[in-house]
């Protein structure tokens, strides 16, 4: 054990919550509780005494590069062949029957019989110092390619949205496991006791296919689940007082509640009562901090313009700006979902010809601004940004039911897709992995979903093989029994 871990372990052994509470039980209030208790005591949380902590106690395992994560999940799975993975050879095969050798033994969601190959539907250019290929659909993004690592050889096990999203977010295609953000806040806690450590922002008009399980806490205590910020009504459910109850009145009532609880504590001597007092204090602070941080109008005009954010919109642009505001305040894990990337070609909105152009216009400027903005604030050095979908799209044109579709579209594809990462020790301006000439298979440096998860944890100072939680007699990991850190993309 190195000195760093040794010191941390010592500290944790001494400063347990109970110890703290006992020492401070005469003082009451306990507002600064969370920040003093040590890293695994997240946002308002405490160790649950019945639940032996295994991995968490030794965290971090090594010196972290990332303090926080922003994960931009494009729900529905964008086409890598129109955005990053340029395949001129595929263009030459456009309209020809797909060879049987590619279809044998494969399972597709909708393709039936023999589909036709489909060339790239957009033009590409080369940008940045490394001459990285970027689609014409992302004119802003091309200016930041030197800050990001593009991984072209991603692959997954699941070809349906809900299971594939669960696999990316929880490490398992079935429901019931904790999501990545839950794991991370369980392990590292939050840097800001007035805000949840794991927050979720959704755009595109719908939740992802996996539903709220995508940010659930699975078998971890419920306090580690992602807190969804809403675009209308309360930014967090029930954060506002009832109409007609001013902050002043709320303060008075909380004072009374806490005074009664103190009396209760004196009678029963139960530490949980003390904890409840501090939770109520924190709730009171959140009533101000949450609406404040969720208000993009607090940003100067030029910043809003940079992202394309507009007050009151439930847009990806607003969510990117909010993500920056949240990480700036110490939120550990910010998860964005943008729905609407499932371009099958069944209609205009879900086509490569129209729908994809529209979706790209919605994300290009904001995601570029996010990287630039984090960089100009010095936050990119310790904020990890990940962009990607849950799987890729086929180099074949979709032929649902064996018929030609009204628009151009591609089916779900597990063997190859592209994501990008930036910040927190991820090399900029590189491309990792390679696919074959038509973009069907990864042929070099293939990266599985579990490898991506291992890498994200690694940047946070966590060894994914040691970070476990005992449930039903088994030590569970985010990466199940798989995963290798993608060392080549790390500086």
């Amino acid at each position, binding site marked *: 054990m190195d000195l760093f871990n040794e010191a941390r372990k010592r500290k944790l052994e001494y400063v347990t919550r109970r110890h703290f509470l006992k020492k401070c039980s005469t003082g009451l209030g306990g507002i600064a509780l969370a920040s003093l208790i040590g890293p695994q005591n997240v946002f308002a949380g405490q160790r649950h005494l019945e*639940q032996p902590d295994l991995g968490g106690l030794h965290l971090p395992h090594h010196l972290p590069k990332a303090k926080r994560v922003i994960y931009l999940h494009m729900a529905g799975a964008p086409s890598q062949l129109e955005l990053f993975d340029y395949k001129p050879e595929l263009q030459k095969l456009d309209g020809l029957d797909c060879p049987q050798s590619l279809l044998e033994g494969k399972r597709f969601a909708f393709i039936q019989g023999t589909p036709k190959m489909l060339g790239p539907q957009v033009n590409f250019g080369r940008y940045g110092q490394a001459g990285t290929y970027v689609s014409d659909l992302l004119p802003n993004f091309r200016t930041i390619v030197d800050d990001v690592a593009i991984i072209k050889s991603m692959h997954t096990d699941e070809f349906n949205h809900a299971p594939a999203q669960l696999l990316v977010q929880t490490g398992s295609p079935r429901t019931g496991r904790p999501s990545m953000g839950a794991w991370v806040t369980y392990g590292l806690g939050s840097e800001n006791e007035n805000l949840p450590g794991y927050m979720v922002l959704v755009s595109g008009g719908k939740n992802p296919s996996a*539903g709220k399980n995508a940010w659930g806490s699975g078998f971890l205590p419920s306090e580690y689940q992602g807190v969804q910020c809403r*675009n209308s009504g309360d930014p967090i459910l029930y954060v506002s007082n009832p109409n007609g109850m001013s902050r002043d009145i709320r303060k008075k*009532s909380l004072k009374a509640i806490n005074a009664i*609880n103190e009396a209760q504590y004196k009678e029963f001597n139960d530490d949980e*009562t003390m904890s409840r007092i501090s939770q*109520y204090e924190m709730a009171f602070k959140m009533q101000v901090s949450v609406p404040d941080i969720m208000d993009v109008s607090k940003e100067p005009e030029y910043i809003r313009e940079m992202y394309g954010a507009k007050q009151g919109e439930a847009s990806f642009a607003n969510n990117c700006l909010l993500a920056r505001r949240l990480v700036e305040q110490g939120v550990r894990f910010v998860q964005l979902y943008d729905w609407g990337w499932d371009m099958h070609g069944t209609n205009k909105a879900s086509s490569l010809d129209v729908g994809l152009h529209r979706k790209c216009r919605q994300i290009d400027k904001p995601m570029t601004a996010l990287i630039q903005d984090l960089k100009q604030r010095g936050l990119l050095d310790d904020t990890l940004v990940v962009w990607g979908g849950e799987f890729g799209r086929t180099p074949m044109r979709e032929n649902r039911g064996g018929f030609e579709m009204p628009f151009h579209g591609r089916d779900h594809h597990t063997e190859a897709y592209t994501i990008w990462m930036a910040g927190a020790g991820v090399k900029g301006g590189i491309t990792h992995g390679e696919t074959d000439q038509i973009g069907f298979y990864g042929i070099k440096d293939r990266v599985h979903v579990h490898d991506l998860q291992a890498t994200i944890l690694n940047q946070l100072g966590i060894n994914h093989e040691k970070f476990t939680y005992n449930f*039903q007699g088994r030590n569970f990991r985010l990466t199940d029994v798989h995963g290798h850190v993608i060392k080549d993309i790390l500086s």
Partner: protein
Amino acid sequence: MNKRFTFIIKIACICFATLMSCKEEQIGFNAQVRPILNKKCISCHGGVKQSGGFGLVFRENAIGKTANGKYGIVPGHPEESEMIARITHKDPEMRMPIEEPPLTDEEIDVLKTWIAQGANWEEHWAYLKPEVKTVPEIDAKWGTNTIDAFILKTLDAKGLSPNVEANPYDLVRRLCLDLTGLPPTEAQIANFTSDTSQVHYEAFVDTLLNAPSYGEHWASMWLDLARYADSKGYERDRKRQIWKYRDWVIDAFNTDMPFDEFTIKQLAGDLLPNPTEAEYVATAFHRNTLANGEGGTGNEEYRVASVIDRVNTTWEVWQSTTMACVQCHSHPYDPIKHEEFYTSYAFFNNTLDWDGPKDSPLYRGFKGLEKQQLDEVKAWVAKVSSDETANQWGNFISTQEPKVLPEDFEDYGNATHRNTADQDFMIAYNNAYLKIGTVDLSAIDRLYLNYKQKVKATARVVVRQDSLNGPIIGEARLEPSRRFVNTPIKIKTKAKAAPLFIQIKSTAKNYKCLIDGILFGEKLPAPQNEAYTSTYKTIDGLLNAKYHYSTPVMFDKTPLFKRQTQVFDRGNWLVLKDTVQPNVPDLLNTTNAAFKNRLDLAKWLVSDANYLTARVIANRFWARLFGKGLVLTSEDFGTLGEKPTHPELLDWLAVTFSKEWQWRVKTLLKTIVLSSTYKQSAVITEDAKRKDPYNQWLARSSRVRLSAEQIRDQALAVSGLLSQKMHGPSVMPKQPDGVWTVIYSKDQWQTSEGEDAYRRGVYTYLRRSSPYPSFISFDASGRDACMSRRINTNTPLQALVTLNDPVYFEAALHLAKEIAPLEVEIKEKISIAYRKVMGKAIGIGKLEILNQLYNDTKAYYVAHEEEAQALIQSNQTSLAALTVVMNSLMNMDEFLVKN
């Protein structure tokens, strides 16, 4: 006497005594050795990971040759055992456990002695038969029943003494919340406190156990295990109508159905002789699995996922044994082998349900005319035959099973099997044929083709015997139909059994119809007279009739179409290996019983041959009353689970519950709440806190936070809003707009009307992708998987719920409106309100605090009348101030926990 001689004698005596004690001290494997192995060795030398070829889960591995040719354990010879050599090695590179602190000298001595004594293995405690060796006497100074005798024995040993009895006001609230989930009414409090005798206490407990609210409360616990929800789970997460099952559970608790019967009906009610509707509905326990209707999903893949879930859930609920790991490989810690997952799987792999859109098999409930017709059919059959046969016909009409599914057709032509997402049917084109393997025709009168046809044309369907050119034994005409209908085809043949070919021919070139399956109808047990014909007509009508509700149930496939179960290679369902038959793991099969089906499994679970069920179940109920079980890890009794704090008490409870009390849950609960252990005060003394911070030894009552449902029910109850209505479809209380934004789904949360918005939490609609938010904040299960225990948390989001959720605010306002008109001064009003909320008199200190709050708030609202108006839609500033006080009362720590 010679001093020296005496000295020698003394020495000799000491030596002899030492020798004797060494000889006598037999090392206990479970007590002394296993804890060391589990803590220090098993993560690398277990059942899966056997580093260096050395594993410590099975004895045969432990004493076998390791990878380097040496023997880890040589029984009788610690000096030859590589294990001892390695744990005592001087070189840190060689010393085990690697990169971890070395074993202590005591631990090493234990292992050496154990090997010297022959390295005997002992089964883990949970796999040994529960036995009651000695029942301690009830002590004169403390204790009411046997439970207390066990508890006191341990308290004495730990240097602790029991707490005083809780004050009657706290005790009555605890009892009511524990047994019915609801706080006591004023009348109950008056009744309880009027007489503190044990006889009266017992009578009071009986009234609670007999209250309908008892079943509603305990159902919540069982529904977590059953992963009950009102939707299917994945992606669009459509509605699933399965509330009849929830009602069945409530009723089963209320009627105190013995737990063995409760078990058998849920796991295999459909396999009981001539099952009733309720017995079918009980099997919905295992129809609570998730379904995936997402475009492009393989139905077989998610059927397999459901079967896997049924295996895991069954073993967790009744045996607290983890099977999930064994899906892919042998158990890492417990002696369960990989293929044993699939012998369990075989029990559940033969049902007719699949990942289809309709959730069939369904048990349909009719009403009105259809109900009357069904009753008439049954009455007629009963008259011409027997009640038993009438019940069979009722089941046939209500389930329309067992159907021959598209996957069962032996061969087909001009047809395609669509088997993904929300489709599962044959598309039959013109001149299509479907072949069914040799079927028993001796009792068959007709078959029903379940089809749907959009094309505006007609087709002729013929049934041929033996071959495509064989004799026609039945025919019918297919007309366009927008929905799936059962069209009867009368069968006339002398053959006892034959393969059948169903052909579809039309004059329309673009002809196409969808076929969902085929149902065989037996001959009515009566001569073919007029009544016979008209009854058939009614039956044919009922098979297409609208129904009032339905419940997904279990239904086995007929033997002809039985599925084979094969081991999945490393858990991958696409790579199949050896065929296996239904069985339970060897470890648990103490009598080498043979098993055919689910019914055998269910009966075995509650038989004497099973050592776990009674312990596991008694522990679950204990855990609900005390906040934690005698085995803390109620989900895992295996090697890695916690050991019982009171093993003898657990075994006594298990044996008494299953034998003497005949699995009566009410008797179990009653015995526990009658004990002095249960009645202790929750006040924690400094001494007890220091000696037993987590209250393992029960020298006090644990203060336990109420469950999500209890917190809401309680707020509604004390404010007078709670509806008493029982049973029926799930309801939707108030919920903020925009919580349901589920993809590809038009389903809306629509607040229920009238009292339905104020029903108990157990009736709240639970959509898996978006559960009721305040329940989730208070640690309720999202019901995606079986959940053995909820872990109570304490978070600011919970504070926001009880402070601001309109449900809680409305409760506060409602209570304030009741109190406000009373013609007493404000302090008295606050006292009355506190009594309503907490069931006892308020202390002076708390009264002063709340009085101050009232006065401050009142003054504020007088100065800001418009805010009072906004708060309560009235300008009564005193009501507004009182509402704020009520809202505070319902946020007191003491309101959220049971003392």
